[in-house]
Structure formats: structure tokens, C-alpha cells
């Protein structure tokens, strides 16, 4: 009996203290909380390839665990064993928005931020047959008429950003939820809604074909792909918004492992092959360390909380 207890204790101590000096010595999994093939999934796959080139001794693989708007996979990552072999994708929706709606078994405080590697810039576009074609016309129209703005899911990033903008600009909008961004885009090109929040890549190809017209960019400065499109800030409205994604881990990750990962991600983001592929995808690569990443998440979470409260959705799913 005593020996078996001792053995168990020894086994536990071996399990609890991984051989840090050798990290990583087996494949590392990054959980993507969405189905394979979406924008976030593809960019994490690209990052995983790049990380594999950076981290000696380990392959980095992606595991898709979709469901619940991203809360299922995010929860799995936050509650994984903190050994550095299971990491998560820290996306804006599941981290900064969903906990306010309720029904998640984690909060923003439970997240161990490693590094941010990409932002998704957002552009408000006018859809086919919309009665406005630029920012000023949009504002004039929206003062008196409720503009129907499509989004890719109630409580999701572009629902919150559209509502937060409407509040900041003091205009009327009616949010129209669709099951995903592809469905919203289809409705937009077909003229079934007036406007939607799109990514620059979506907006660029569609505006080239005359299917959408960019109205304004949700950044504090104009962006390269749309040099003629204003920002909300320069029109006197204090509003910026972008969604983002980074790598997160469970609390309790050994500091050495965290440092190794941060270094590797910083190097992986500089990788030329990674950058080229991300650019083709229309992704905006940017590196932020754990502190900046966390600060961004906390700030967005606060804006989202207020917007969700205004919409009467706070704690809806608790």
C-alpha cells in the first residue's frame, strides 16, 4: 500500500514538472474554436507552420473544436493542462464578447495571454442599391431612417461594432443577423440589406466589381488598400474597432515555457513565407506582447459590455 502511494506520488511529481529544459519535445496543439476553413482557422494554420519552422524539436498542429460561437474550443484551451502542449486561439468574440452574454464557463480573467499575431480591420460598406454611397450621405440618411446593417451573428464582433458605432455617432441602425459572414455578404451584394461591416479584403474585391462601396474605416488612420476612404475619427466620431486573434494558454503555464513560446511567436510572425500567405488572405499581421494583447482585450471587453448592456443582452444566457 505504502509503496503504491509513493509510486503514485512520484508519478504525479513527474507529470507535474515536465522536463522544461527540453520544451518542446512533442507536438504542440493549438485549438481553433471554429470549423476548419474559416479565416481564423487558415491564419492559425499558417502560424502553426511558421512556428514549426521556429521551434526546434516540435511540430505545431491545429485542432478544430467548433461550437457555441467559439466558446467550446476556447473553454477547452483555458481548462487544458498547463504544460505548453495545448494552446488556444484567443479571438475577440469568445474572449471579449461572449462572457458578457453569459453561458460561458470562463471569464476574461481566466485567460493567460501569450501574444497577439493578427488584427482584422473593419470597413463599413454600403450594399447594392443602398440610398447612400459615401460617409456623409450615410450619416445624413441614418439621422432620420434606420439603416439595416447585416452582421454575421447576434452578439458577434460585427454586430457589437456596428451598434457601438451607432451609439458613438448617434445614428439609427437596425441590426440584421445572418448565420455567417458569407451569408451576410450574399445578402449585401443582392441588395437585401443597406450596409454591413466587412473586412478590407472582402470589401476590396467586391468594390472593384461594383458590388459594395466602402463608407469608412474603423481605424484611427486611413489604410493602404482604401486611401480615399475616411476614418470615423477624421469625421469627428471617436470610434475605432478591429477584431483580433492571438495565442492563449491556461493559467499556471511555467514561465520558461511561456517565454519560449513568446519568442517563437515573435520570430514566426516575422517569417516571410507566413507574411506573404497572410497578405494574400487579406489578414493584417501585427505582433503584440502579452501585456499589450491583454490590455487590448480588456479595453474591447469594456466597450462590448456597455454595448451589450445597452442592447439589453447582458447576461442573457446565464
Amino acid at each position, binding site marked *: 500500500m505504502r509503496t503504491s502511494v509513493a509510486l503514485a506520488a512520484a508519478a504525479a511529481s513527474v507529470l507535474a514538472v515536465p522536463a522544461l529544459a527540453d520544451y518542446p519535445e512533442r507536438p504542440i496543439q493549438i485549438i481553433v474554436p471554429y470549423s*476548419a476553413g474559416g479565416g481564423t482557422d487558415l491564419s492559425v494554420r499558417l502560424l502553426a507552420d511558421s512556428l514549426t519552422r521556429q521551434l526546434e524539436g516540435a511540430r505545431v498542429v491545429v485542432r478544430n473544436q467548433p*461550437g457555441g460561437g467559439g466558446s467550446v474550443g476556447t473553454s477547452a484551451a483555458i481548462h487544458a493542462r498547463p504544460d505548453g502542449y495545448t494552446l488556444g486561439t484567443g479571438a475577440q468574440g469568445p474572449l471579449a464578447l461572449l462572457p458578457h452574454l453569459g453561458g460561458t464557463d470562463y471569464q476574461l480573467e481566466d485567460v493567460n495571454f501569450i501574444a497577439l499575431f493578427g488584427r482584422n480591420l473593419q470597413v463599413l460598406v454600403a450594399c447594392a442599391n443602398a440610398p447612400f454611397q459615401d460617409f456623409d450621405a450615410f450619416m445624413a440618411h441614418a439621422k432620420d431612417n434606420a439603416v439595416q446593417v447585416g452582421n454575421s451573428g447576434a452578439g458577434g464582433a460585427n454586430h457589437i461594432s456596428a451598434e457601438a458605432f451607432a451609439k458613438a455617432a448617434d445614428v439609427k441602425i437596425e441590426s440584421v443577423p445572418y448565420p455567417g459572414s458569407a451569408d451576410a455578404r450574399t445578402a449585401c451584394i443582392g441588395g437585401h440589406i443597406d450596409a454591413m461591416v466587412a473586412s478590407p479584403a472582402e470589401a476590396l474585391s467586391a468594390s*472593384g466589381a461594383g458590388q459594395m462601396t466602402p463608407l469608412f474605416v474603423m481605424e484611427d488612420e486611413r489604410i493602404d488598400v482604401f486611401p480615399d476612404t475616411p476614418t470615423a475619427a477624421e469625421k469627428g466620431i471617436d470610434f475605432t474597432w478591429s477584431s483580433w486573434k492571438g495565442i492563449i494558454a491556461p493559467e499556471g503555464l511555467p514561465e520558461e515555457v511561456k517565454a519560449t513560446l513568446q519568442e517563437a511567436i515573435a520570430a514566426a510572425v516575422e517569417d516571410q513565407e507566413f507574411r506573404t500567405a497572410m497578405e494574400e488572405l487579406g489578414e493584417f499581421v501585427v505582433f503584440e506582447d502579452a501585456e499589450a494583447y491583454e490590455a487590448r482585450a480588456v479595453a474591447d471587453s469594456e466597450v462590448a459590455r456597455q454595448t451589450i448592456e445597452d442592447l439589453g443582452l447582458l447576461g442573457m444566457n446565464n
Partner: protein
Amino acid sequence: MDNLVYLLPLFDLEVLWVIALGTFGGLIIGALPGLTATMGVALLIPLTFGMAPVMGLNMLIGIYIGGIYGGCVSAILLRTPGTPSSAATVLDGYPMAARGEAGRALGMATVASTIGGLFAAVVLATLAPQLAGVALKFGSAEYFALALFGLTIIASLSGDILKGVISGLLGILIACVGSDPITGGLRYTFGVSGFASGFAFTPALIGLFALSEVFTQMERFGQENKVTLKVAGRWPTRSDLRESRGALVRGSIIGTIIGIIPGTGSGTASWIAYNEARRSSKTPEKFGTGYAPGIAATESANNAVCAAALIPLLALGIPGDVVTAVLMGGLMIQGLAPGPMLYITNPDVVVGIFGGTFIATLFMFVFGMALIPVFSRILMIPRHILAVTIVVFCFIGSFAINLNQVDLYTMVGFGLLGWGMQKFGFSQAALCIALILGPMMEANLRRGLLQTHNDLMAFLSGPITLLFLGLAFLSMLLPLIARSRAGRGTSTPSQNG
């Protein structure tokens, strides 16, 4: 015709080899329950980074076409829809295989898939820009009417209308579990976060059709002496083909139209095609008993969807279904933005994809035909061993799709439900149709009401809406008329699906 020169790169040995590999891989992925064409394409996109666009994209299209076809293999042999699109193939494919004619059923499915695929590929290559506009006409009211029309299939598909309606309504109710499509609020999840997006569809179908059948078979183990099946044949008979002519034409056309409409998919197309084939048949009572035109209709429709779903993607930059949404990522990674401009900036890619679609369909035919004897040998495994193997696959397949253990409960729950329904003569097909179309009907009804500020009349306007509502009305009425005409003496045999 200058564009034909862009077809030349396809006949490079390396490109042909990659398309063949993609199609073969897709076929295997589709045949394995729980691995879907969507997953296959998504997982292999990174492989295409380094390839020339035409080569990489055609490999993905090969996986797509092979994957949708491959789904029929397990549907016919094991009553396990490998992909949701082949659920309707179970209805006639499995009874035919159970009769010892697995080869004939697989042969019919292969020929039908090829015809449907080639038909839609011709439409894609010749009429894509003209037809793509249809995709833009669909607003909430139109989708609602289409879903309603689809749901009326239940009336003609169920022998006992009352039981059919009960199954259908149960399906709609089950589809309400998960987050509300308009407010995002969670419904009927009882605090289990794994159910936040509702019951996962593929595990539900695997349980409903495959696990339930295992239960039913287990009940019979004691009584039957014959433990293995014959697996004769490879080609459909001449009379199969003659009888299926109408079903093939209708299936191909229906699949092409549904494929162009974004947000619908091969699941919807195959059920509507099955119902149309049955409705217009001179011998509707044979459907559901292992009748070749039933297989011909569903398989021609679901493979027509593949090429047709590329029409709005290439011509407008909007994906026609889930797989093409993933393919769009593949295009963008190559630096190509799908949409009207693609025809002007990269005609080589567009024409290359047209050609690749044809080639992949032909490869699918060759591989499919060659593998039929191999696949049908599965049925030579003694039944009690096969039953256990199917149970194992049910679990693996249900878990593999989302790596979510809640999906296993879903699968077992639907297995028990399906077993009970089968026992008491409730149509599993009706439940399946409601699971596909219920959410589409609800979301579009409520979105439409939101946009029009609760104006129900908006659902009675527009030519497309009225067309589908009219079809829905007829589809409800015709079985009743047929029934009263047939008199009281003969009753339609109940559909066991």
C-alpha cells in the same frame, strides 16, 4: 473559343496526378462516416500553398467531388450516411444492398453521380455568369418559401401522414435547440455549453440512420440463419437505367438549381430530387424498397450541387455552400479574389477550374466503378461482426467531426430515437428533412419579419416566393388527391427511412 488554350495546362501529367489523388482521397474521406468533404478540403488547403493555382484548386475540387460521391458508399452498404448529402440515398440504396444487390446499387449511384456532375459542369462552363444572378434574388422571403416547399416533401414521403407530420414537427422542435438565430440567446440547452450550437448534424444523422439500424438488426440476430449477404454485380441493369432516365434528368436539374442558391446544399437538393422522382414516377410505391430511380435521383442531385455551387463563387464571389466557402479561402490564399473580375483578370484560372471539374468527375467515375467490388466485400463480413464494427464507426465518426464529447450523447440519443421511430412506423426521413430545413425556415421567417417590421404580406410577394409557395401548396394537395383517387382499397406502403 480562345479560352480553350487555358485547358492545356490541365493535361500535364503532374496536374492530372494531383487531381486523381484529390478525387481518390475525397472518395475515401466521404465514405468514412464523420469525415466530410468540407473537412477534407479545409485540412488540405495548406498543401496547396506551394502549388500553381490551377493545380491546387483542382485538387481541392477533386476532394469535394470525390467526397460528396463517397458518402453514398457507406449510406448504401451500412445505412450510415458518410456525409449529410447522402442521407436520402439510404432510402433506396440500403434496401437494395440488403437484398444482396450492393453492387447494383453502388453502380447506379456511381453512374448517377457522374451524370449529375457532368451536367452541372456543362452548365458551369457555359452559363455561369448568366445564372449566377439567381443567387442574388434570394432574400429572407424567398428562402422561407423554399424551406416551406422542402418541408412539404414530408407529406408525400410518409405513408401515414399523421405520423409523418409528427416526425417532422419533432424534427423542427429538435432543431430549435441551441442559439436563437436572431437574438443569439440559448434555447433548451439546460446549461450544457456543448449544446450551444444545437445538436451537431452529422452525429445526429449517424445515430438516426446507422445506430438505430444496428439496434434493429440485433433484435433479429436470434431468428435468422443467414449471416452474410451476396454482393453480386457492378453495373446497374439496362432496365434500371431506362426506368431512371427521368429521375436522372430531374435530379441533375434540381441539383444544379439548388447548388446555385447560396446557403442551401446537397442535403436539400437530394431530398427534393428524391421527392420529385417519386412524385412523377408511374410506380411511386416502389420507392423506398430498393428501387434504382430513388438512388439515381439523390445521387445525380448531390453531385450536380458540387459544380453548381461553384457558379456563384466564380461569377459573384459568394459561395454556394459550406464547401465552396472553404474553397474561397483556398482561392484567396493564391492571391485570387473570386468575383466578376476573376473572369477578366484570370481567365486561365476560371477555365482551368471548369476543365478540372470535368476531369475530377471522370476520375470519380473510374475510381468508383473500380472500387465497387472492394467496397461491397464489406458486406461479406458476418453480420454480427459488422454490426459491432458499425457501432465503433458511429462513435469514431461522431467524435471526429468536432472533437466534442457531447456529440456522442447526441449520436446515441438519436440512435435510440431512430430505433423507436422505426419500430412504431414513424418516418426517420421526415425527421431528417425537418432537421435540415427547420432552422432555415425559422431564421428566414424571423429575419424577414425583423426587416419588414412584422409585415407578413412580404412573404406573399415576389415571383420566386410565390412560385415556391405555389409548389408547396401543390405538393401538399397532390398526395391527397392521389389517395382519394386510388380509393380506399389500396394504401401506400409506408416508407421505412
